[in-house]
């Protein structure tokens, strides 16, 4: 069963909170991981690996750099799941 955009956003909020201590409410679609949420490149790797596990998708190294905003990540996961 396909997951909804809201479910993915919710899950990403939990992950970003766990990895970087960012408040879940701050994880909104228009936010940039680096600039708005202060997620550095290594924390981004942790977010990606946790998202792979949670949503059962594969996000290869070379695609990670394209995930600039939370919306990018939601779209990627939605398409891949």
């Amino acid at each position, binding site marked *: 069963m396909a997951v909804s955009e809201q479910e993915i956003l919710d899950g990403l909020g939990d992950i970003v909170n766990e990895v970087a201590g960012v408040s879940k409410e701050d994880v909104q679609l228009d936010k940039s991981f680096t600039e708005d949420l202060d997620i*550095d*490149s*290594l924390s981004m*790797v*942790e977010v990606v*690996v946790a998202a792979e596990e949670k949503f059962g998708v594969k996000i290869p*190294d070379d695609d990670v750099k394209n995930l600039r905003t939370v919306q990018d990540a939601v779209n990627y996961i939605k398409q891949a799941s």
Partner: protein
Amino acid sequence: MRNPAPVPGARMLALGEYRPARIVTNDEIAPQIDSSDEWIRSHTGIVTRRWADTETVADMATLAGEKALANAGVDASDVDVVIVANCTHHMQTPGASSEVQERLGANKAGAMDLNAACAGFSYSLAVANDLIRAGTARYVLTIGSERFREIIDPYDRSMAMLWGDGAAAALVGPADEPGIGPVAWGSDGARIETVQQEPTYMEVFHAALEGKALPPTALRMQGPKVFRWASYEMVHVAKRALELADVRPEELSAFVPHQANTRIIDVLARGVRLPESVVVAKDIERQGNTSSASIPLALSALLERGEVESGGLALFVGFGAGLTYAGQVARIP
């Protein structure tokens, strides 16, 4: 033809270390890479590192090797093989090991360098274990020694703050039972470009002949890719090493992974699911990444501070350029 009789086991008999005197703070490095002490601490865990002055890989290896021999009470002339694991010796050839062997007075020993980058110590310990168990050698002196100054670009923002210099040695000898577990090793050559030296010596050589200027050759790293590989893939290597040795996590005294970045160590330790009783080495905070020297230096620091006791079991996982990796369980000397 005949072969020597095998022996039941091998173990590390003693360690010896050499840490250069010069302590380098983050504040000293930060201006060249437009960074700060706070940023370097929070992103790498490194507070200070040590840099060699004029000491070479062979100098530091000799000093660490001398200490290991003295601590074990074994004479250099009884050593059968000297292995210097390193990736930073200043000559392609000869390796550092022949000089070390000569200076130690290990006059009957064979000598070889072993380059498995940051996995070098675990590789050399595996080789020493098997040389001794097969009866080929009685005493093997394994040394990790590195001097990074001439292979790191001081202006590279993802590299300049990470590295430290130093050496540590383990004298390995025969034992009545296994003191070093089977190695879980391998190499992921498909990821070779994620950590490598650029330009190559070949390019530098031809440029020099043609009178062209090239930048100094330096180690370059694709940080996030290596972070992902080290933090998550190495969990399987750690678990495999435990399985091969038939040791349960709760039997360990210490987890001593290669000291590359505290964030890798934290994610890796979480993934291996070690009980709280297992001490996790974080020598990187004061020593930086010393590549093949990092595991024995970190173990030596734990022993010195009384955080682990001789006779306990430690789990080692080395990983580095190649990408090479090796893990094993070993009894703490």
